[in-house]
């Protein structure tokens, strides 16, 4: 009896100790450059959260739990615990439990959809009691990344069949559909980023090109008068056909393409004005011309650009900003945190922050490429894609290059769910990467 129990209880221990014995401490194998970048971003984020809520007529200590910076410190502390857990847990768990985790999160999303009380029109927050709220949509990112990677790792990539593609599409798009139902369109859009990861694993570049072209045409339709746009595209396509005899042979295809593009141009207008909800319309319109109504729907964009633009080359200095404090910029410690950097640290500070993100993204791609399993590599690319999409849209909207979509700046914006979600996302990769040598042995 005792023996059996003892064996059962003791059985995991030898496995861990044996791996330790054969492989040594995990610490030398961690990618310290990525971890350092992570901590720099988190620390800078924390200081800027303080700057964003700082008020010169009522100075509160940065550590005070009454303000966002104090609370963020708690989330950061919890993240440290989370990191330790993620690094200590057997790295194989992530692959093995990818589907259960994914299933659990889908369930959580559905539960949230049913039980959540609307907060600002969104039914995405799960109240855990004791004032703690969780946004499962944030967790859905890493869960989906795990599940999709696991799936890609389990099939033969060379013999793609329609069924596999449909399953992958389902894994990728079930969470965003539920999230859209929760009225969190911004978070749902993030899942489009997976296309980048799939592209690396062999997805036809056409999808990437078509997706990119569609987005470009969409934005251009809003910015350029229809007639000019159609004329321009017609001339370009005719020129291309004339220059390349191969296209001339596909004359019918070109005509078909032209009809599709022109049809899209016309439908964008219809889509914006008749399909989108008013608040979504406004965000799109604000992108086109925020100055048309600076106090109305263009408010966010205009104020955000004023804040960043007033920073100048060197910035106004830490805590010296006037726009990001005093509530001119909305959501100043969450979605519009970049304005604080722009205002107080100027072009230099903004560029350094962008460089830090680029460093992180390029590094993650390099980490992904050195993985030996398809699962690990795909997961790495998913991490890079998700972080990139947030970076693209969040900074883009503050400088008027992307529509206002309420998604946070990774590691930087205030908020526990967001910070934890990105921490989990990144450190699962770091844990897997630290153990990659063992995969070799396997």
């Amino acid at each position, binding site marked *: 009896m005792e023996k059996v129990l003892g064996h059962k209880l003791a059985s995991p221990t030898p496995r861990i100790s044996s791996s330790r014995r054969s492989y040594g401490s995990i610490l030398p194998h961690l990618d310290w450059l990525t971890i350092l970048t992570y901590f720099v971003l988190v620390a800078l984020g924390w200081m800027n959260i303080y700057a964003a809520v700082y008020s010169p007529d009522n100075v509160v200590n940065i550590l005070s739990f009454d303000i966002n910076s104090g609370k963020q410190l708690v989330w950061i502390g919890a993240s440290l615990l989370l990191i330790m857990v993620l690094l200590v847990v057997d790295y194989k768990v992530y692959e093995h439990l990818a589907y259960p985790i994914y299933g659990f999160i889908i369930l959580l999303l559905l539960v949230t959809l049913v039980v959540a009380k609307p907060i600002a029109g969104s039914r995405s927050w799960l109240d855990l009691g004791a004032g703690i709220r969780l946004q499962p949509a944030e967790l859905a990112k890493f869960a989906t990344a795990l599940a999709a990677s696991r799936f890609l790792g389990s099939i033969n990539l060379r013999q793609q069949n329609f069924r596999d593609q449909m399953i992958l599409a389902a894994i990728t798009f079930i969470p965003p559909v539920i999230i859209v139902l929760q009225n969190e369109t911004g978070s749902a859009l993030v899942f489009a980023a997976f296309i980048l990861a799939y592209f690396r694993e062999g997805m036809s570049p056409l999808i990437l090109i078509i997706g990119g072209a569609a987005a470009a045409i969409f934005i251009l339709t809003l910015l350029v008068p229809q007639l000019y746009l159609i004329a321009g595209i017609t001339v370009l396509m005719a020129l291309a056909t004339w220059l390349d005899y191969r296209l001339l042979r596909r004359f019918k295809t070109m005509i078909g393409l032209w009809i599709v593009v022109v049809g899209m141009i016309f439908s964008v207008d219809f889509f914006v004005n008749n399909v989108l909800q008013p608040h979504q319309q406004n965000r799109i319109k604000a992108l086109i011309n925020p100055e048309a109504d600076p106090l109305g729907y263009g408010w966010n964009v205009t104020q955000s650009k004023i804040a960043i633009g007033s920073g100048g080359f060197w910035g106004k200095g830490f805590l010296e900003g006037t726009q990001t404090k005093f509530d001119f910029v909305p959501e100043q410690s969450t979605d519009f945190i970049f304005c604080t950097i722009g205002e107080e640290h100027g072009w230099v500070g*903004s*560029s350094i922050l962008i460089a830090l993100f*680029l460093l992180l993204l390029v590094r993650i791609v390099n980490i992904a490429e050195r993985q030996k399993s398809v699962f690990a590599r795909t997961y790495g690319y998913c991490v890079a894609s998700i972080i990139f999409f947030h970076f693209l849209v969040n900074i*883009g909207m503050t400088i008027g290059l992307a529509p206002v979509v309420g998604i946070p700046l990774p590691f930087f914006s205030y908020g526990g769910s967001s910070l934890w979600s990105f921490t989990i996302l990144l450190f699962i990769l770091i844990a897997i990467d630290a153990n990659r040598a063992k995969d070799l042995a396997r």
Partner: protein
Amino acid sequence: MNYLENRKYVIQGIFLLVGIIYIIRLFYIQVVDSSYKQAAETNAIKPIIQYPFRGLIYDRNGKLLVQNTPVYDLMVIPKDVKNLDTLRLAKLVNLPLEDVRDRLKKARAFSSVQPSPFYQKLSTQEFAYIQNNLIDFPGFHINARTARGYPHQSLAHALGYIAEISPRQLEDSTYKGYRPGDYIGKSGIELEYEKYLMGQRGVKYKMVNVRGVEKGSFRDGAFDTLAVAGENLVSTIDLDLQAYGEYLMNGAKGSIVAIEPATGEVLAYVSAPFYDPNLFTGKDYGKNYMELLQDSNKTMFNRPIMADQNPPGSVFKLTQALIALQEGVISPNTTFACNRSLVNCHNHPSPLNLYGAVQHSCNPWFYQAYRLLINQGKSKNTFTDTAIGLKEWREQVLSFGFGQQLGIDIPGEKKGIIASTDLYDRVYGKNRWKYSTIYSLSIGQGELGVTPLQMANFAAIIANRGYYVTPHIIRSIGDEGKPLKEYREKHYTSVDPKHFEPIVQGMAEVVRAGTGRRANLQKAGIEVCGKTSTAQNPQGPDHAVFLAFAPKDDPKIAIAVYVEHGKWGGQSAAPIAGLMIEKYLTDTVTIKEQEKWVLSRKYLDIRSK
């Protein structure tokens, strides 16, 4: 699989491309385009005007005419209002319940976080009462500011008043720097000396949040400026004399203007009926203003400088005599018979020389003298000759300050009318009028209009024997200052000073034994020179006029008194002039019987109206 590995570079390339586009975009909006910096300043930095104390106004003896008194406004910040007992609040401020609700609604509509006035201009009693109860009304507070106060209730027309700047003024570039809600001089001294009285506004730069709530000073107040109080003004008015003049005129209509001849300083400036200037400071300002504006006695009409429709009457005979002497067409000993076929007259000895003609105000005498003056035979054609004579005569009349603005420092002064060749040419046609057409001018009737101020100035000219200093009501700007430059110059008339003496003699006779006997101050040892007049009034009984100065040698006061519908200057205006002169020169009144007579108003039917 190798070609897929290359896709790594595509993906990293996309990352870098986006990063570079963003850095370039940031460079554009942060470094190249400066419009965002300006937008940021107007966004978050709010200049808060520091209102200076408006300058005070003193009388010539240092008595306060205009001061600043604290007024209290009950303010409300709607956001902070909690558990409001509306009924009790209504009782506290003594307003109907609905009114209270309306005011709250208005305040909320304005801003929920910024204070807005709930009940303005509380009286001191209301203030004390409300202050004591305020603790039960969170969100309400008292805001103290200053308004104009007038401790003596006198001189309303000259002082003028201040009120909120009008939308029209705000659009005018002359009032650059004023903001809506600012108080500005609207009339009188308050308007004329606005730029001295207003002082210099200070500005405090506050940082504000998006709702306009203050968040501390900008750069620790490095750009702030302090408010500089307005300059105090010292008036030429003698408050005691002014108050006495108002006492005498109370219930009558008309004007008194008294001037110190040598300096042009206005000693008294009465426009009756008058009003208490404090009426324009309280919360009933609008109502009071409209009432006064519409009242049938034309209380708001600033008579001394605006009543220019009345001909001067007999006083003008003095002007005619002076010009005739200057032109050499008469001498003091020229005699004319009182020929009533020329123009009507009253019983007096005849014939008379100049002294007698002035003393008895003989109409035919001046008819004949004026004909000599106008028709000097400069042209054989009597029409042309008259035109030449009138033109030359008019030039000289203007040198007495008639027919033009004298330039007193009270806005709204009227020019008056002096007959001109143009005027007659228009009415009768060129060369179609001659002396018989215009002879009324000889006795101060006809196409003449003179303000009481011009009349008083004329008295000062005779007192000075030939010159005047532009009448003014402010003698110094700042406690130690000087009057404006234009009030330090002597203006000589076209008439040589030596010609004034006979006129002065005649005027002394008027008071000693003529029509102006009620202004006689012989008992007090003061020799008064005067002249009665009747200003014809087509709308009713004629206006009584008396012009005087005293003492005869080294005059200290020149005065013009108008009593509307007073009929004869000798009866109603002369005693007022006498009383004023005695009051000013000796600070006492001995001719009590005249005071009683004036206050009885027996010569007026004004009260029965």
